[in-house]
């Protein structure tokens, strides 16, 4: 379960960012922003590494005191960032991978929607509900 989910365009501006309302939104925006540097680093070094590094899933980008940040880059250079609570140790790698897979599938659907203009903020309700399902439910 994520505390923050973000979709960043290839030009590095956010297309979609959602965080749990209990925390300061600005803090999450900042966390996502700083994770972009790590993403850039990972995809530029991957060019020199072996074929297995050419996966879309980037894994854990960096841990902070309270959170763990995971990244994923599509072939269209769109980045997905998922932030989870550090205390959530039960969350396994393949669960994170499946969250990214869902994000990628929904994002592809958004891209193919004729009412969506690439580069615009994502306003699809279907996308919203997919993200809601993977976020921590706050009471």
């Amino acid at each position: 379960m994520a505390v923050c989910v973000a979709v960043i365009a290839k030009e590095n501006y956010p297309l979609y960012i959602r965080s749990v309302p209990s925390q300061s939104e600005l803090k999450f925006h900042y966390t996502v922003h700083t994770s972009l540097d790590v993403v850039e680093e990972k995809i530029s070094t991957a060019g020199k590494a072996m074929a297995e590094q050419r996966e879309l899933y980037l894994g854990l980008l960096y841990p902070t005191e309270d959170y763990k940040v995971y990244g994923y880059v599509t072939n269209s250079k769109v980045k997905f960032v998922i932030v989870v609570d550090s205390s959530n140790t039960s969350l396994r790698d393949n669960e994170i991978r499946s969250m990214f897979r869902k994000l990628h599938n929904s994002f592809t659907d958004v891209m193919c929607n004729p009412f969506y203009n690439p580069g615009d903020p994502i306003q699809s309700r279907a996308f919203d509900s997919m993200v809601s399902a993977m976020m921590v439910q706050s009471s």
Partner: protein
Amino acid sequence: PSVFIADMADEALFQFLHNEVIQYVNSAESGETENGRCVSKLENMGFRVGQGLIERFTKDTARFKDELDIMKFICKDFWTCVFKKQIDNLRTNHQGIYVLQDNKFRLLTQLSTGKQYLEHAPKYLAFTCGLVRGGLSNLGVKSIVTAEVSVMPACKFQVMIQKM
């Protein structure tokens, strides 16, 4: 046998729709500049479709190594997904210019097998040029795509990569 028919019906549907789109756009334009505007409208349509298609087609592929890798993908996987065949020949000067040759371009086979209707060919290639440009654009490659035909149904698509 029934699977074969389904495949053919698939392709035929797109071809008929494509031809109707061209007739529609053509009739909507009138005057001296009609051919130019018609071609750009079709190219822009192709662009948006290309963006969406490439997102879908590259969803499960590995990350691309470089520009040549991307062009090879366009020639093999992309062309096969859209036209059920690969590009027959890819040439490059390794300086950002690629020529994709299709000896039997699916959207031209119904027009003629020689020089007849040659003057109408640009309209039938515009959408595909946009398709390639849109696909490349979404992969982070800015380009200009043009096409030329000398003998139907063979045609060449020229991709000029724009350095940003």
